[in-house]
């Protein structure tokens, strides 16, 4: 079923791509990000954390954003919520949430949407909750910002939310402080807080990174269940491909602040076309392999966001750079449709990419 839906979405993308040049744009998707750029001037130069990112997301679906540290994943999510450092960031492009444009909106307009229409779960639940307020107080606060209800009613709601995210004896735990919760419980409480106003867009920024492996699976299940219940759109930001494969409908692979591959889970995991995606898949440890077999790390280090390599940002680390007639080092590859709904930014000819994947990469994985 997921595959069918993804194809339908793919057709839509072609449609918007064809008419996208029109100046007056009416977004068709629930969340649509178009050519988003978030740059930070610094003493060493302009840091291009996000540089021309586009994607869209419907209610009830999950987009996984994958990439190394510093690829711009977190800045993207903070930018959507308007939580980036407003004073020194230069933001351009468009973010449409349910028909409302956010980049040009005032701080106050975006604040009113935050927490109510879009909420976020952060990486480290201990440092992300205020140590001096009880878990209940923090959920009550989140709820009462957007709902004009009594403290008593809000507290009832907080207890109900804690129960829904699977915290035992929520009527008693509601008065505990974050440090009295275990790591997994804390992340559940964070999720309860994020979902307290029933947001339509939920952004989870590495929600399981700080947790035990056993708890990770529980939290992911919880997010999936709650997503079905609330029919919200979810952006899952992670560097863990396992997490993405588990939860996402679509995947966006980021490198150096740009998207290098964008498509459905099947596309990106079974028919990946970008050498960087191949590298990510190759560096994933697998239990069904012999331990003597070595992982295939991506050689080199992520590029500096101030001085991105000319041409393709990945070219210095790419094993196939030589096959592009030098284009990789001179011309920046655009994100182009390679198959319906599957976009890749690479100078290698599409047939060549599929051939390399089928003959050289896939057999080794």
């Amino acid at each position, binding site marked *: 079923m997921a595959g069918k839906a993804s194809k339908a979405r793919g057709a839509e993308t072609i449609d918007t791509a064809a008419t996208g040049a029109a100046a007056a744009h009416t977004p068709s998707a629930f969340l649509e990000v178009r050519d988003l750029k978030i740059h930070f001037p610094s003493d060493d130069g302009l840091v291009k954390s996000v540089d021309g990112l586009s994607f869209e997301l419907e209610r009830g679906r999950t987009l996984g954003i994958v990439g190394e540290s510093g690829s711009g994943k977190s800045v993207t999510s*903070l930018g959507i*919520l308007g*939580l980036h450092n407003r004073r020194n960031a230069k933001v351009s492009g468009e973010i449409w949430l349910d028909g409302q444009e956010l980049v040009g909106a005032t701080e106050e307009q975006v*604040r*009113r*949407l*935050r*927490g*109510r229409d879009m*909420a*976020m779960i*952060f990486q*480290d639940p201990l*440092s*992300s*909750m*205020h*140590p*001096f307020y*009880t878990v209940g107080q923090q959920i009550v*606060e*989140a709820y009462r*910002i*957007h709902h004009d209800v009594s403290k008593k009613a809000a507290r009832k709601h907080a207890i109900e939310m804690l129960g829904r995210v699977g915290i035992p004896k929520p009527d008693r735990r509601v008065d505990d*402080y974050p*440090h009295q919760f275990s790591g997994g419980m804390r992340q559940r409480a*964070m999720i309860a*807080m*994020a979902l307290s106003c029933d947001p339509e867009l939920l952004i989870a920024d590495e929600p399981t990174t700080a947790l035990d492996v056993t708890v990770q699976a529980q939290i992911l299940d919880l997010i999936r269940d709650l997503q079905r219940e609330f029919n919200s759109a979810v952006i899952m930001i992670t560097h863990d491909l396992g997490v993405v494969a588990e939860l996402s409908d679509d995947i966006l692979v980021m490198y150096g602040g740009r998207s290098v591959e964008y498509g459905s889970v099947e596309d990106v995991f079974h028919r990946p076309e970008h050498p960087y995606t191949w590298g990510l898949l190759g560096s994933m440890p697998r239990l069904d392999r012999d331990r003597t077999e070595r992982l295939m790390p991506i050689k080199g280090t992520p590029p500096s966001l101030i001085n991105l390599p000319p041409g393709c940002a990945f070219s210095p680390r790419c094993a196939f750079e030589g096959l592009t007639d030098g284009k990789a080092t001179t011309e920046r590859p655009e994100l182009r449709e390679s198959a319906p709904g599957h976009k890749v930014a690479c100078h290698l000819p599409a047939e060549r990419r599929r051939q390399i994947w089928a003959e050289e990469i896939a057999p080794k994985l």
Partner: protein
Amino acid sequence: MIRYIIRRLLVAVLLLAIISLVTFGIFFLLPKLAGQSTDDLAARYLGREVTPEGLAGVKAKLGLDDSFLVRYWHFIEGIFVGTDYKFGTSVTHCPAPCMGFSYRTNEPVFDLLLDRAPITFSIAIGAAVLWLLAGVTIGVVSALRRGSAFDRGAMSMALAGVSLPMFFTGLVSIFLFCRQFKILPTPRYEAFLGNPATWAQNLILPWVTLAFLYAAMYARLTRAGMLETMGEDYIRTARAKGLPERDVIVRHGLRSALTPIITIFGLDIGLLLGGAVITETTFSFAGLGQLMLQGITRSDLPVALGVTMATGLFVIVANLVVDILYAVADPRVRLA
């Protein structure tokens, strides 16, 4: 929470007992170390007419020849139930909080303390309120507008405040405001109950000069604390909830940044009393600081002992209050 308070109270009582023992011990030992015999002490008490009978009488009255423990017991007994001083046939009863009599003026030390304490506390409490308000406000605004003209101006002022000694700013301000421009009366203490307005008017200069010194430190501390907390993850969470920025700053940022300030405030209250000598001398206020100075320079041991005990009590109570406030502010402290 209640258990925490009880525990802190017990510790405070124990501390007081130790302080009394140590200070009493010091003042018991001091004359001996200085090579003074009990006769010398008694002679000081008698004044000009020194006779052997008088000496013996004074020694008996003050128990100067008794052992340390007996005298300490006598002292403690005096504080709690009162005690009698026998001089020949006459008996002087010293009622309950009895801390002995001044060697010089023969006044009860406790009455002297009662007389002087309001002056010192008026200065201290007024200045403390002023510097907390000013320091924290300036610190918060500086942190939120880091690098702005306000921030740079405030921090330069703060540097001046920290660097300039109180006896300098105090004297300069008396000169300016009382002599040159004659806006304020030359400070002299008026009882609060008599006329609060003149009380405050007379205290403004000591308050402002003291507060200038401390507010400077508090502004810097608050600024540093706010800069740190506003970068915390939970501030991002508060913003992600859609909380208006003012609430983010006050309820989430300042709340955290203030807790270490409370602790330092407790310590500073103690320092302030130690510094009372300078403040009171600068403005010629006859408070506890001057009493202490007199007690020490004139070897008036009961007075010096009394002032030490009184300030010790005050510092302990101030720190107790601060510790309890701290536990209220930071729930993680209660369990530790």
